[in-house]
């Protein structure tokens, strides 16, 4: 078997898989996004041009969903970076049972989103939830309060995904050459200076990668928010998209919506990647 045949044997199935399950549906749904198609009817799809996009971009409810999602992404990803990086800093030193502690800290991100959602729903319960009991908050309604529900969901997401940021940060921290710290110590550099001039610049690229991944994931969050809260103030775009596509069966409209979300995720990711490249160049 020639090298070319072996290469083709490995590549062709993957390409075929990508075309059938990714590229084709992507293009097909792009076509649907310009129609009034509803999968629940036998009626043919009629071309409506940009009408769906216009409707969605002028619908105040959709903009509310985008605003909610933006808030959620900012709170959740910022929280994960602060907590995750903080934990990595603590673990990046010689402490007893370091391996065991690291493994235990990684457990939340290994759980299923649905399980985490159901557990945290119990933890937040105003009558018997341990959070209110522990904080002495009486019967405070975390998930029913319209001003708090979104932050309660974000807090759960921070708990679940901070370990991911911690893991990547830890890898970055352990890769920082020790002699830089030794040199800084000889120069009598303070810990503040060492952190901002040595640690952070060297770890920043890998933390940026964690931020890119977490932003993309937070933007797409569905299950956690769907399980935890009914509050319209916590209705993320993925939930609205699901309802539009599979409860209301507005197939054409929801395809357009999905494309708007896709463009936004790609745009945000591109901004991050550009920034990442800048950080790397420094």
């Amino acid at each position, binding site marked *: 078997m020639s090298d070319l045949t072996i290469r083709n044997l490995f590549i062709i199935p993957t390409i075929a898989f990508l075309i059938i399950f990714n590229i084709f549906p992507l293009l097909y749904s792009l076509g649907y996004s310009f129609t009034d198609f509803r*999968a*629940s*009817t*036998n*009626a043919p799809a009629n071309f409506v041009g940009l009408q769906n996009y216009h409707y969605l971009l002028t619908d105040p*409810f959709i903009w509310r969903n985008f605003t909610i999602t933006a808030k959620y992404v900012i709170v959740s990803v910022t929280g994960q970076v602060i907590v995750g990086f903080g934990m990595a800093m603590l673990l990046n030193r010689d402490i007893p049972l370091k391996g065991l502690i690291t493994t235990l800290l990684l457990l939340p991100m290994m759980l299923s989103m649905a399980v985490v959602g159901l557990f945290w729903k119990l933890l937040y*319960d*105003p*009558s018997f939830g341990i959070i209110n009991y522990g904080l002495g908050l009486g*019967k405070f*309604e975390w*998930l*029913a309060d*319209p001003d708090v529900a979104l932050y309660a969901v974000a807090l759960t997401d921070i708990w679940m995904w901070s370990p991911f940021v911690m893991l990547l940060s830890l890898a970055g921290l352990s890769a920082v050459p020790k002699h830089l710290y030794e040199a800084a110590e000889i120069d009598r550099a303070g810990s503040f200076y060492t952190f901002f001039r040595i640690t952070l610049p060297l770890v920043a690229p890998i933390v940026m990668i964690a931020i890119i991944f977490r932003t993309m994931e937070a933007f797409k969050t569905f299950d956690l928010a769907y399980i935890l*809260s*009914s*509050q*319209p*103030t916590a209705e993320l775009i993925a939930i609205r998209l699901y*309802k539009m596509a*599979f*409860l*209301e*069966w*507005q197939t054409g409209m929801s395809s357009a919506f999905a494309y708007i979300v896709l463009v936004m995720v790609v745009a945000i990711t591109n901004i991050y990647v550009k920034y990442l490249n800048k950080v790397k160049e420094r």
Partner: protein
Amino acid sequence: MKAKITGLLAGAAMSALCVTSAMAEDLVIFWAEWDPANFLQELVNEYEAETGVSVTVETTPWSDFQTKAFTEFNARGSAYDMIVGDSQWLGAASTGGHYVDLTDFFKKHNLGEVMAPATVKYYAEYPGNSGTYWAVPAEGDAVGWSYRKDWFEDPAEMAAFKEKYGYDLAPPATWDQLLDIAEFFHRPDENRYGVAIYTDNSYDAMVMGVENAIFSYGAELGNFETYEVDGYVNSEAAVKALEDYKKLYSYTPPGWAKAFFVENNQAITEGLAAMSMNYFAFFPALLNEATNPHAANTGFFANPAGPTGAQHAALGGQGISIVSYSNNQEEAMKFLEWFIKPEVQKRWAELGGYTAHADTLSSEEFRQATPYNEAFYQTMFKVKDFWAVPEFAELLTAANQRLYPFIVGDEGTAQETLDALAADWHATFKKYGRVE
């Protein structure tokens, strides 16, 4: 050798034919996962014993029911021969070509007379008053109420209530009384709360709860003939109804922001609330001492009348339809012929199903069979339903988006909420060319 191969092929062909034949006799009914589906499975086992045709009742949780059913419809799948679908699906499923037209079957068996009028109107006919039928009323249901008899009959409570409100403590006959009683029993310090109502906005739960108030206050969701909504769903009566529903929410237990049938039954089984709203189909669990320690002290009443004396309730329940893509339509039709027999409907009621069969429903035997059957019987003649148009899900989404922030989030006023809802619904009807 050739003879052997021929024999093998013949055997294989015979086996294939037998398998096909056996499969043709297997019927699958799709329904939501709840007690009535279990009762139906028991009933159809008797059909199998009679005819040799096996019928399986396949279920899925309520939260997935609509999505799963329509996904199968959209794929033109033949996984289900019949479906016990929600009343509001009628428009979407019939105009989408997913249901078999049962008009001839309906007329042949005079089902318009045989079944209770409300069930024919809401579970079977689409469009309204068209004389075209798509389902056989199968499980009648409506929203009713359960309450703690021991709390209501406690002499000390009765005296205190009379002193405070000036009339005797008893199951409420009006919404004003319902509000008074809810307020009276609402004692968070004692972990005792006034009432449990529907607040889950993920599908139709909260809207059905609000409908209970709106219909009994004499208001309507709109004009079902002309699709006008302004002046109906935001009328003075509807506004008052919504205000009172919100008032009821303030008497619910903590964490009652996403409550549906499970939570509302728990409000009684866990001794949390004095009264709880729920579909009648969920009441059997409240009489079972294994699931409700207060079973002996649980009573039931129909949705109370509003200020004008109008008394209505939100319709639940479903009709059974034949799926257009089924390969066993003829067999399914035979099953329906069996299902509508009076003796089968009687047996259906005995097993726990809420028959829509008018004679069985009105029989003394049925009405006395459980403590809630009388309330159910009374209610089934006063039910009203949500829009059954193909775009019902969009109307439901708008209702959830408008009502929930007001009821649970304390945002805006009832008038603003319903004005906005009327505008949303009008825009949706306009989008589908139903209004100018």
